[in-house]
């Protein structure tokens, strides 16, 4: 099986990560494409409220 790494990895840890000095706010990055933003803006804010399922296994 080939190495599962497909993309180049960052050369150094991301800023604010690790260190073991207590909880930190999770790192948050903004989505960086207009297409994805458009897709997200199209999501009906009430879609989950109207989503009903029966319990499964």
């Amino acid at each position, binding site marked *: *099986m*080939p*190495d*599962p*790494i*497909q*993309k180049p990895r*960052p050369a150094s*840890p*991301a800023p*604010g*990560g*690790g260190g073991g000095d*207590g*909880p*930190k706010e*999770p*790192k*948050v*990055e*903004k*989505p960086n*494409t207009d*297409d*994805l*933003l458009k*897709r*997200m*803006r*199209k*999501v*009906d*804010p*009430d*879609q*989950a*409220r*109207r*989503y*009903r*399922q*029966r*319990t*499964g*296994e």
Partner: protein
Amino acid sequence: MDIQFGLETEIGITRDRPEGIDVVAESIALVRSATAPGVRSCWDYRREDPHRDARGFRVDALRQDTDEANYFAQDASRPMSFAEIKSDLVLRNGARFYNDHAHPEYCTPECSTLRELFRQDASGDRLLMECAAAVDPGSDNPVRLYKNNTDFLGHSYGCHENYLLPRSLGWSALAGGIQAFLVTRQIYAGAGKYGWEDEDRFLHPGFQVAQRSDFFTELQSVDTMQRRPLVNTRDEPHADPARFRRFHVIIGDANLSPFATYLKVGATALVLRALASGAPAGKIPRLSDPLGALRSISRDPAWKWEIGAAASRRTTAIEVQRAYRELALEYAPPQTDEDQGLFAAWSEILDDLEREPGSTSDRLDWTAKHRLIEGFRESEGIEADDPWLRSLDLAYHELDRERGLFYGLWEKGSFRTPFPDEPEAGPGLRPPETTRAALRGGCIEKFGPLVKSAQWDGVVLQASGGGRIELDLNAVFDLGQVQAGLGVLAAAHAPEDLLSLPFAKRI
């Protein structure tokens, strides 16, 4: 890997405007819209016994029997037979596709490699979307399918895993030995969720790592729908019961990211191999409160995942996973390139989760979802308790590639795949070549109209000269047997020609 495995995924189903819809009818219609090559309504339920318990007894009733009876009573008013409601379809790749009460369920065929599982899982997603397109073409209220595990109102549905194990691995050693592993693997296998739930109710807003961790109250049980257990004790090996057992894992999220599925199933199989190889109980991590840890890990806002271990010691989910990885290295050392890659990927994800959880958003569903939705929330000024976040969460799981947020990320290259050389379109519905699924699927493809019944461990065909012929697959796990069977099947002109196989007989 010498442990075979497969996935069973229940899919959420609704319509764009869901008011007044009957989700059971929607699920039945979706499954019945499948035009993929297969054989309909031939599933042999007589070979199933959900009341037999792996702990050595048989229960008189399951807690869910009442639910089943209620569903049966409700379904009795439908102008359909039991077989039509189930609408079982055994596909030419050896998979099963059917209506499981109120959810379309796709069960992959048995796989012996993670690459095969990747293909078969992807084939299921494609099949589901083909059905969504076919069920009601041109409708202004189209069907929506979600590969997720909750409706945010306390109704959960599963993504179960099955692992074929030697019977020599005793139940208590197995169930006890893997418990801490299953509780902690959610840090890479969770699909993420905006909301906390309890059975049948929404609790409050808030992000957590896993979709399903709110719903487990038992460590092990023969039930699966009420008082849900981490592992199911149903003793139904779908194989020679003297030699094999099926380990049926209930705790686990449906993953969209192929890398998450690869880690989830791959690491689990490595740990099971270590247990089957005799890893001693004294080296296996133990938790003081496994069910409490399940929730606390999922809901920990700091993503440090501190939990209690045996003897009042404190540990973390990452440390537990590292201990299991060490155990697997010692008792199930890598045998193949796939194993080597898996051990490396497992180690890397634990290091990255410890260093900076957000750095895993190119592999894991929960970090990808969190990063995407939190970024959107900040840019749009959405409050942390806005129900829109749950709608965005739901949209992450939508299987429609033009709408689903996971697919939006996937198509812009945000995710790694464990198999970069694998064509994304996949091979279509073709069975794994290394397991008995190839024989099941081969019979479906070649002799479909003559298949009278099918199960995981057998196929019955109508002989053209009269009578029936059974392929008993309950001990066909050796690659040589599978290949010999495929050779005979390729040359066969009629089911009778299969009688030269040692596991075929007239019945």
